[in-house]
């Protein structure tokens, strides 16, 4: 993209913010007209906090902001939006039970005498949805019918519909597939050409060359570097973000594959998982690629027994082939899972790292059900060191940890349990580059010790970095398999060619 040309639109100077500890320390940032200003930094660097201050969600403790010539001190998100600063949050704030249209316009439902004008609402909703390529959806259908990716698009559509001078996007592509990301980038480019300025937070290095006009790097709440244009050497960025040299070499130092540790045969679950057969060998990381809604999450959950299968069988190692009826059976058989939504399904956010790391059927215990506290503390400390979890103590609630550290806690739990097979669903979504590297390395070490991993990811770069083989899913089936050395084009083509529209969304139309 072209270098920033416009005048400064939004200027922030000396912004500081402390929660329980200082999070932002005298950070300054300026945003020029028609630029895409990318913010990068490790988990917890303060990117979202800075964005939230700009967007009026939280007040700064110190510092000033100006929007054009006038001071910018929004007291609320609504005030910021009125001034033309619109923000898409990192955590999705949508209402699954309500219709798409209502989700898009909840704070400004068209109404007459307090009565919602549905016709206008739906007309506007169709327009807003078309903007993000969801024009074919019925705005009356409940949001609950959409998968995570499409929900993210709805959230973005909500922001795009507002007249804005500044658009703040906090990790918008974390849940998007390549195709959807492309669509979003097209939009951003269009908005920029219309003079809108964008603040863009991401962890994905591969996106920089495609949209960044400028890249600012935050580390521990301080501004550390700024780069013009998007062509920055990844190694340098990682160094700036982490404050140390980036680990050399890919994590995929592949060992020869051994015996089959996981064999899935003819697994079915309604229309979402159809006759899936696959094998994972010891020493192997097998990837699952596919478009949003292809059924990867469902497949992993069905293998794990979290959702009931209607037919098929699963075998772990030399064990008996059969269906796993519950996660309990799966864990007993030697499988562990990193769920897609780790905050809800993987962790107890209010509980300590110690409790979460040892949340397993076989907790360290002395006799007849009584917890052996010293043994427990030792085990938790061992996981903390082994997994390089960054926390103040093992008593810190995991809700306060960064995404990457949260994921390390879940991973550490399964490794401590001694499982043979790990099912990983988007294990590094929203995780910074350094923590991502650590997680990949830990997974690699796990397979090198004889384990097997089945890993679903929407990020082709991740699949390339760590997988020995990649299976492509579409419409609940496995439609292609690639050995190392595959190209993005080939995988994407396979995912598209066989992509069948899901029956779920069709039903939404007909109602």
């Amino acid at each position: 993209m072209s270098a920033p040309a416009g005048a400064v639109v939004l200027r922030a100077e000396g912004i500081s913010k402390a929660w329980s500890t200082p999070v932002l320390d005298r950070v300054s940032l300026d945003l020029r007209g028609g630029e895409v200003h990318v913010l990068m930094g490790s988990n917890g660097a303060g990117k979202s906090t800075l964005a939230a201050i700009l967007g009026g969600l939280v007040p700064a403790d110190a510092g000033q902001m100006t929007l054009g010539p006038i001071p910018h001190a929004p007291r609320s998100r609504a005030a910021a939006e009125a001034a033309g600063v619109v923000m898409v949050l990192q955590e999705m704030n949508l209402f699954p039970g309500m219709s798409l249209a209502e989700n898009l316009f909840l704070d400004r439902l068209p109404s007459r005498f307090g009565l919602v004008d549905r016709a206008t609402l739906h007309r506007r909703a169709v327009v807003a949805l078309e903007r993000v390529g969801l024009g074919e959806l019925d705005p009356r259908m409940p949001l609950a019918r959409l998968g995570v990716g499409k929900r993210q698009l709805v959230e973005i559509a909500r922001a795009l519909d507002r007249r804005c001078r500044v658009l703040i996007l906090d990790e918008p592509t974390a849940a998007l597939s390549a195709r959807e990301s492309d669509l979003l980038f097209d939009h951003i480019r269009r908005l920029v050409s219309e003079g809108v300025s964008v603040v863009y937070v991401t962890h994905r290095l591969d996106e920089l060359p495609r949209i960044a006009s400028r890249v600012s790097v935050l580390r521990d709440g301080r501004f550390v570097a700024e780069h013009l244009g998007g062509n920055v050497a990844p190694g340098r960025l990682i160094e700036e973000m982490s404050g140390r040299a980036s680990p050399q070499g890919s994590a995929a130092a592949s060992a020869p594959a051994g015996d089959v540790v996981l064999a899935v045969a003819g697994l079915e679950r309604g229309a979402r998982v159809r006759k899936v057969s696959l094998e994972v060998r010891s020493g192997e990381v097998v990837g699952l690629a596919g478009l949003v809604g292809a059924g990867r999450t469902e497949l992993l959950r069905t293998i794990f027994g979290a959702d009931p299968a209607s037919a098929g069988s699963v075998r772990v190692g030399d064990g008996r082939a059969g269906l796993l009826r519950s996660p309990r059976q799966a864990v007993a058989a030697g499988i562990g899972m990193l769920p897609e939504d780790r905050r809800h399904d993987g962790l107890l956010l209010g509980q300590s790292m110690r409790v979460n790391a040892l949340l397993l059927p076989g907790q360290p215990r002395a006799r007849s059900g009584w917890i052996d506290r010293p043994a427990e503390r030792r085990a938790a400390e061992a996981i903390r060191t082994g997994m390089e979890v960054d926390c103040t103590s093992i008593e810190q609630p995991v809700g306060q940890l960064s995404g990457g550290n949260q994921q390390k806690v879940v991973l550490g739990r399964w490794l401590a349990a001694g499982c043979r097979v790990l099912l990983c669903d988007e294990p590094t979504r929203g995780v910074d580059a350094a923590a991502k590297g650590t997680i990949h390395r830990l997974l690699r070490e796990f397979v090198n010790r004889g384990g097997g991993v089945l890993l679903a990811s929407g990020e082709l770069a991740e699949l390339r970095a760590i997988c020995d083989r990649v299976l492509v899913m579409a419409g609940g089936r496995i439609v292609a398999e690639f050995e190392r050395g595959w190209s993005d084009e080939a995988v994407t083509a396979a995912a598209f060619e066989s992509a069948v529209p899901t029956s779920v969304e069709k039903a939404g139309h007909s109602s």
Partner: protein
Amino acid sequence: MNRTRLGEWGVLVFVWLGLVALFGTLADHFLSATTLTTVASRLPALAVVAAGMTLVIIAGGIDLSVGSVMALSGAVLGVAIVQWGWPLAAAIPVAILTGALAGLGTGLVTVGLGIPSFLVTLGSLEICRGLTYAVCDSRTLFIGAAIRPLAQPMPILGIPPTVPVALAVVVAAQAILSRTVFGRHLVAIGASEPAVRLAGIDTSTPRVAVFVLSGALAGLAAVFASARLGSADPNAGAGLELAAIAAVVIGGTSLSGGSGSVVGSLLGVLVIATLEAGLAQLGASEPLKRIVTGGAIIAAVAADALRRRWEGERG
């Protein structure tokens, strides 16, 4: 969504028809116009309270104080008519206002201090009952002729005028819920209050307003109950909160907020009233009544759970 709604209501209508058939067989005169009148005249008070409760629950709260608020409003109504000699037309608004004020207090404390409404209304339940005893000196007030016309069956329909009023309230509450900005915000608040706040919407006002509404409807219920009984009873409404919650939940509203319907609650009320009337006509013994009522609550909720599961599996 509409299909689901029909499914939900279908189960209830089915349960209700089952009850009617059962009692029709067991009791000699169950299938009669008198029974209809009896059941119809018992509906209004519970129906409007359940309507208010539905909105409160959908918005993520609960109101345990409805029974006491109803008693308090009834006491005020009785004192206004009997002791101060006010005309009905003046006393009724005051009774409703009393309920609304009680609701306002609850709402302000709940929202202002950020305490679960379960606890605040557990407290206001006691406070309002105490105030009721204080207002009417713990005595039943006989209102009599001044208010009875409201509860006398109308010439042709055979139902008292309170019934259409209550139905209108239910329809209005349903419309508020599904057609107004206020109603949609309530649903959203029940689903996730922080998310609504983040969307730049004021959540305090609707959250307080829904308690005011629930209180006002409890006040209206007091008018209905006083009309039917011809008296204001300081002990009125004991256990009303549980009956209303049961009706709401039988009607398919989720106790955790964010979804539900007022019409469903009306069906829930109908089921409960029919069950009561049937058991009374059979002359069932007290133990049997209790066991059947309890079993019915569990059965209704279980049926709904099974229906959901079944629908979920079909896709």
